[in-house]
């Protein structure tokens, strides 16, 4: 589903991501963990075509993000760490805009908005301007927007930040639904307990380099993910 091969991204003289390779297969929830500034966001942004890599290749279902970004972007959805939405639109207008861009038929978008907005208890707020939303509400709108076109691959940067417990639970359920339907999830998080319980596979990045990856059992063995992570960070 998502193949990252020898990804390198350099800012000035600093290597933000250094020769990173990862493969995310259909049906997998892949967690991406690392300390602040380790290169998680840079990697995720490169995967969705926001940043151009300085080296390496990223493919979505075999299509290169570098050479055919539009085809890749049609298959995926991205939720950034900070939900930067258009303040000048209402929630419903924002969702309709996203649906237009992804070419979601009118009937389907109506149904999905009704369904997801009800799940996240956002229906009553859809006519309000996004500027009036709280951080959590913006995050919920971002999630609904990401699910609008039923993407095969969802890339999320710290998706649980700002969500209330119910919404966090819902999101986890929805992530599972995507994977059961043959899709894949690649997301970064600092909440190691969530990663441990939710992810099929996990990758740990430190100073731009991948230091461990594999199934949850392979990475943590008999320890907790937190212990392994702290141990690796200390090395």
């Amino acid at each position, binding site marked *: 589903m998502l193949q990252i091969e020898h990804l390198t991204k350099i800012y000035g003289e600093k290597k933000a991501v250094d020769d990173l390779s990862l493969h995310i297969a259909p049906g997998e929830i892949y967690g991406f963990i690392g300390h602040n500034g380790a290169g998680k966001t840079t990697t995720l942004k490169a995967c969705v075509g926001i940043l151009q890599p300085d080296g390496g290749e990223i493919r979505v279902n075999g299509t290169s993000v570098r050479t055919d970004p539009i085809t890749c972007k049609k298959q995926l959805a991205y939720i950034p760490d900070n939900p930067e939405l258009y303040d000048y639109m209402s929630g419903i207008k924002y969702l309709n805009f996203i649906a237009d861009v992804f070419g979601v038929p009118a009937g389907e978008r109506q149904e999905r908005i009704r369904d997801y907005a009800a799940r996240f208890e956002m229906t009553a707020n859809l*006519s309000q301007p996004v500027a009036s939303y709280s951080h959590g509400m913006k995050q919920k709108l971002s999630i609904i927007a990401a699910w609008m076109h039923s993407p095969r691959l969802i890339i999320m940067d710290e998706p649980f930040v700002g969500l209330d417990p119910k919404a966090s639970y819902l999101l986890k359920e929805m992530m599972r639904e995507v994977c059961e339907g043959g899709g894949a999830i690649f997301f970064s998080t600092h909440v190691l307990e969530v990663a441990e319980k939710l992810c099929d596979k996990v990758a740990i990045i430190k100073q731009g380099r991948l230091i461990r990856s594999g199934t949850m059992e392979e990475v943590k063995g008999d320890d907790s993910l937190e212990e392994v992570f702290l141990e690796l960070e200390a090395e």
Partner: protein
Amino acid sequence: MLRLLLKKQLTEIFRGYFYNVKTNKARAKSSTILMFALFTVLMVVVLGGIFGSLAYSLCLPLEGAGLGWLYYTILGLLSIFLGVFGSVFSTYSGLYLAKDNDLLLSMPIPLKYIIASRLLSVYLMGLMYSAMVLLPALLIRWVTAPCGVPGVLGGIALLLIVSAFVLLLSCVLGWGVAKISRRLRNKSFITVLASLIFLGAYYFFYFKAQDFLQELLRNAAEYGEKIRSAAYGLYVFGRAGEGDPLSLLLCAVAVLLPGAAVWLLLKRSFLSIATASVGTKRTAYRERALRSRSPFRALLRREFARFTSSANYMLNCGLGVLTLPVGGVLLLIKGKDLVETLSAALGPVRGACIPVLACAAAVLLVSMNDMAAPSVSLEGRQITVVQSLPVAPWSVLKAKLCLQLILSCGPMLFAAACAAAVIPGGIALRLLVVASGLSCAAFLAVFDLTLGVRMPNLQWTSELAPIKQSASVMVALFGSWFYALLIGVPYLFLCEFFGPEIYLAAVTALNAAACFILLRWLKTKGAATFASL
């Protein structure tokens, strides 16, 4: 603490002069000096020159009549008017809507310091506009009629009093706008409407003032006496400019007392206005059938939504939408008289310039539309939304271009058709007036978007930065004025050699060629630049 905040505010205002947002590096000293020099030339030579010539025409006659105070009164009032006019549009957002409100309010900073630092921005904006009138007026007065040290000190004190008074009025107006806008639903449109009424009043008084000044110069002594007896405050205001200590004291008190009241008003209301949530009136969502559109139409609608959501954006970058039709209607009413006057003034040979001058005038009006220039910068941090969506960067840019083309070419077509209806000449010439006008509007749209892509600034705390203070908008505005001159002036010298049809056809062809070149750049390198922002 206050010094820190003032420094932060000054850094925000002058950030573009010291820091290149494109390269994320500090500018070289030479580059900073050059930018300041260009700004100074613009303010002093171009704008200062206009008001300097007005001051020069008033100074000697009034001084000769022993009415030096009246000189200061007239120019002082004009500078107050311009200062308030210049800063009123930005006072509300500058004072209350900065994006770092929450950050600053969460820190242990006394509220009065935050207000004071915001007032600095408003003060500097007002000072800049007032000084544009008063500084040349003072220099001309000091040079043409030397007045000694007290006179010089009085003039400087008058400038300070005027700038403080402008700050005071701007704050009151900004507070009023804040109070009203909290109760409005279509805030941006109502703000635009109110501003346009203000603008209309400004130009009405401006044109009336010309007649008034001429009348005043003819009967200076009589009017001087009338003003002195009927409005003694204005006499005191003028005398302050001459350096009269008692008048200076009275003027200072007249500003300081209401100033203290305004300060108290701001201190009491700032927190509630700055932290008022947007859209306080909540209406529950009622499901309606959603229409689907093509991705490009969705992007275009997004541009329209951005444009119409901000009164600042509409007022600063979209006035041509109104001025072109108004100009067209005025031409239909007064066009024949204007053509006759111009024909008489230009003579039989240069009379052929009228269609070209009409085209240049239309360019001046359409230059008020430069919404494409700040459109890239206005994406701000939300640029990642479009960058992550499956749309080609060129589609996003094309939507920005279409916004300006739609809002410029429609009104331009009407204005140019009105011009074509009143100018003398055959059908070919009339068609060429319309064609050249439209080609100019199209060229400016492409040119403005090119500037927007080449000079982006995505890191701003107030939307006024990209809309009013960005390099792309400055170059777009002054570049389009130069472009209007470039269209109108050469033909004044070339009209002896060929007719206006050939000249306007050449203008149209050159515009088309320039559009073609710029569009090619936008589709390729421009789109790549946008994608990598």
